[in-house]
């Protein structure tokens, strides 16, 4: 059941993303920024956790989930450490994913060569 819900919720979020791409014809960076900020807002309002309960990975894997983690991290740390927690909480919570992207990105750049065919 979790797999079915992951597929449906994850697919739906991506479908909304596709509508945004085809309607506004903007650089994908705008979409990614919008998703993360929306995730933070939904996380702050406590709405996104409910979506995660239903959709599991379908909600955590899209970038909205990244935004949700940011918000939760910042809010958790803020409640225990105050201002410094608000500043660093989001970064601490999401550090593994970002660090992985950096490390793997560098490794890939060293090992592979860019390919032109598309």
């Amino acid at each position, binding site marked *: 059941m979790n797999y079915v819900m992951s597929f449906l919720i994850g697919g739906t979020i991506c479908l909304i993303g596709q509508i945004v*791409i085809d309607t506004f*014809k903007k*650089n*994908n960076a705008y979409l990614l920024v919008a998703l993360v900020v929306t995730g933070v807002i939904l996380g702050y309002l406590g709405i996104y956790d409910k979506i995660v309960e239903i959709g599991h990975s379908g909600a955590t894997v899209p970038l909205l989930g990244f935004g949700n983690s940011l918000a939760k991290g910042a809010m958790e740390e803020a409640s225990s450490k105050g201002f410094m927690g608000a500043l660093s909480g989001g970064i601490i919570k999401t550090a593994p994913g970002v660090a992985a992207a950096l490390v793997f990105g560098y490794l890939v750049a060293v090992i592979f060569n*860019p*390919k*032109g*065919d*598309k």
Partner: protein
Amino acid sequence: MKKIGKTYKIGGDVVIRDVYTIVGPKEGEGPLKDKFDMVITDDLWGEDSWEKCELKLQKTAVENLLNRNSLIRDNIDLIISGDLLNQITSSSFAARELEIPYIGVYGACSTMTLTMGLGALIIDGGFAENVVCVTSSHFCSAERQFRLPLEMGGQRHESAQWTVTGSAAVWLSNSGKGPKIKHVTFGKIVDLGVKDANNMGAAMAPAAYDSLNQHLQDTGINYDMIVTGDLGVIGKAIVNKMFNEDNNSIESKYDDCGTIIFDIEKQDVHAGGSGCGCSATVFGSFLYKKLLNNELKSLLFASTGALHSTTATLQGESIPGIAHCLGIEI
């Protein structure tokens, strides 16, 4: 030489003696595959970057053009070239190894007719006997300069065009046999406010219409064929619409290099080909041979360019379009 309206009428002979074309693998699989002089097998061609591959395309096109005609470098008075990359490095770096006096120009995708037009005027003015005009573009080097990294996932919009990988070198001379450049019209910049860098055809079409119209009015010649550079499907439709609305339809004899070089459906190039190399290689392989075979007696050839930059686009500027026309007759 004299000037009629905004068009230069070439008084003496400016003969297109030969054209050498090289294209990339994708173009080599297109409808014109048998007509190119050389098709490279991969997009690096033994070089270690796409930019270096592009300058090799230019350099090889010129060298093979000279060799095929038993010319030596000293026979050539001037080389005029341009390309799409910042500071036109492909052209300058290719010329660095050719040791021929060099003028680099930037006309975006209009470069082919810009360089040929300039060459024709210089020859007709008696300042040179032999001029080589060159241009090139490379899908990968253009893509990374103007758009996104190539490994970035995502879809191209339906209006997007595919930059042609290829180069053509044209030998212009004041003597000999071959099709002659009779009229040159340098276009003015026309910008009707298109800002979508994924719809270059629409951005350039008004400039193409303006220059073609100017040339046809100035010369009054009824050309066998009219060909624009790289408007693609969308730009071509707009140019046709504009002429039709003037009750001066050119539809039956009008085509666009961007729609000739690729099989648009099969090769998945959306709105068609673009880039300096597009009009250059289609002219060198397809149109020039039609002129040589007497299949065409006269050709109005207009490369079209979008003179924008990524910086200007990000700053919200619209895209200035330009088109330069050559009236070629046999």
